[in-house]
């Protein structure tokens, strides 16, 4: 499965593309991602618990997981996960 990383997360993973095996939830996919790139964890998750840092956004097929079931959102094989550090502009 493809995980896409944007913005400053590319300073941790140049190119911003990571392939991982299928996992059933977003949280499981993150575990797999952090196993490959441990330094990413501090950029995405709260240090003490499985919770996104403020204004870090994760999209599953373009839907923000905060609007679905959060990190427990179910994942289907072939889905695309995109992780954004805090982003706004205008």
């Amino acid at each position, binding site marked *: 499965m493809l995980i896409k990383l944007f913005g400053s997360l590319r300073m941790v993973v140049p190119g911003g593309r990571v392939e991982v095996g299928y996992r059933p939830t977003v949280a499981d996919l993150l575990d797999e991602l952090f196993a490959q790139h441990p330094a990413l964890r501090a950029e995405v998750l709260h240090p003490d618990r499985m919770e996104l840092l403020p204004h870090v956004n994760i999209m599953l097929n*373009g839907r923000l997981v905060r*609007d679905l079931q959060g990190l427990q959102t179910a994942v289907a094989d072939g889905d695309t996960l995109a992780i*954004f550090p805090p982003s706004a*502009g205008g």
Partner: protein
Amino acid sequence: MIGGYAHRLAHVDLTSGSITYEPIPEHLMRKYLGGRGLGVKYVFDNGPKVDPLSPENLMAIMVGPVTGSNVPLSGRLAVVTKSPLTGTITDSHMGGFTAARMRWAGFDGILLKGKAAKPTYLVVENGSVTLHDASNLWGLGVRATVRALQEKYGTNSSVMAIGPAGERQVRFAAWLNENDRASGRGGTGAVGGSKNLKAIVFIADKSAMTKPTEERKDAFMASVRAGQKAINAGVLTAPNKGGLSLYGTNVLMNILNEAGSLPTMNGRYSHFEHGEEISGEKFRETMLASEPVCHSCPVACKKELEVKEGRWKTKTESMEYETAWAFGAMCNVYDREAMTYMLDQCNDYGLDTIDMGVTLAMTMEASERKLISEVVNWGDTEKMSDLIRQTAYREGLGDILANGISRAATQFGDPDMAMAVKGQSIPAYDPRGVQGIGLGYATSNRGACHLRGYTIASEIAGIPFATDRTVTEGKALLLKTFQDLFAFTDSMDVCKFATFSEGAEEFAAEVRTLTGMEITPEEAMKIGERIYNLERYYNNLNGFTGKDDTVPKRFLTVPATHNSAGMLSQLPVMLKEYYELRGWVDGVVTEAKLKELELI
């Protein structure tokens, strides 16, 4: 005496050459604050029934009570007038150092009417305004104009100027300053051109910095430090760390594209397959030259870009998200160098990049559908660059485009091709995939705009709280809150990006401790609501009603694609709730509301 203000306003009659000065009455400061709010009041009092390009139209150059102080991001200047693009009232703000120098030169506002007999520029210094012959500047681009005037008036000068587009009254012509910062939207540059006004020079230095009285000094500095702390710690605004600071506004390209909410090829689609190539990340990686700042701002969201050699060789700032989208996704272009060159053209000719890019996209659709004989293919960057020049100089097909997107689309035979509201082009968020922003486009008092009420902060970024971009519930209240808050911050006048890290409480404290006016957060929101309603009332008096509060038909009838597949704008549902919250009837301000807000 109320603190902060210069307590000086200039009335300039360009026809007669007379210049008079007066203080701003205190009751107007309390009701409208400054910047956008006071500018709107003066334009309203000038009467709504004026031709925007006639000598009778009033153009107000305004700053706010905190301008040129240590308040974070307090370097904004407002141009307020009746728009030749939309026929509505409009205000458009520029950053850089022009606003601070205007305040330091001793002014809260300069109100311009009439038409000079020959090309003219103003010099603003030490509390006085003088008129000068600009005949030798007429015809020059913005860059050459700024260079000539700064050589003459020295390094303590800031210059705002129009280019060939403003001189020819292109209806989306802009004012720009020496830092390529633009009052881009609404065609305020054309109003300058209609008055034969080429430039304004502000001469002053920091010795005249805006400060509180001695007794309010400690409280003011405490509020400034609180604001600075919020900006420096903000996840978006933190210098060299936050997304806005690292990548500029174009940090948004990938997130909107991933959400299937990036209008593409004139809004036919909502995803651009080459979006990554025109993102802030790519521009930073490949073309970044420097990261300039504005007055009292550590964020440095502006990104100067350089094309070092070849056909598109240039150096310019700043590839905003809207610009990258308008020349990129909307026109099926992903050549970053060509896009940068086109941005530079707009900066020098004095054109709004959003309206220019979206108008080109509409022209490409017209060409594809054989509605026009001229061939303008999707993605043809050479043709785009040529049409930008033609538009600025009103030559050939450009003479039609120069009248604005809606007039041009109507002339081509299908007004629904214009991705615009009230004649002003939409910005870079698809209202099918992000519901609240569609309501924002429809109800903006200056035509399609994201900066009247930036619901994207909540619907995408989750700031100050998250809402689901796909739902309509609660979006009316969310938008109204943003609109009223922004009307207040535009009147202070601080940058929108301060609102990513500060709220009504911090803003009210900054104004209160500087001016001494007892402004609470609730009063700040009330002032914002008053300004928003006065703008709406002005538009109503010009014949605008609920029928004008809409989004382009395409977003109501043609489903979005990619990750927003099947979605349409649900505007009618939100609009009904919005009018109820506003206390308006079919888009018209009621007498009861006008009385409640002390507008009549």
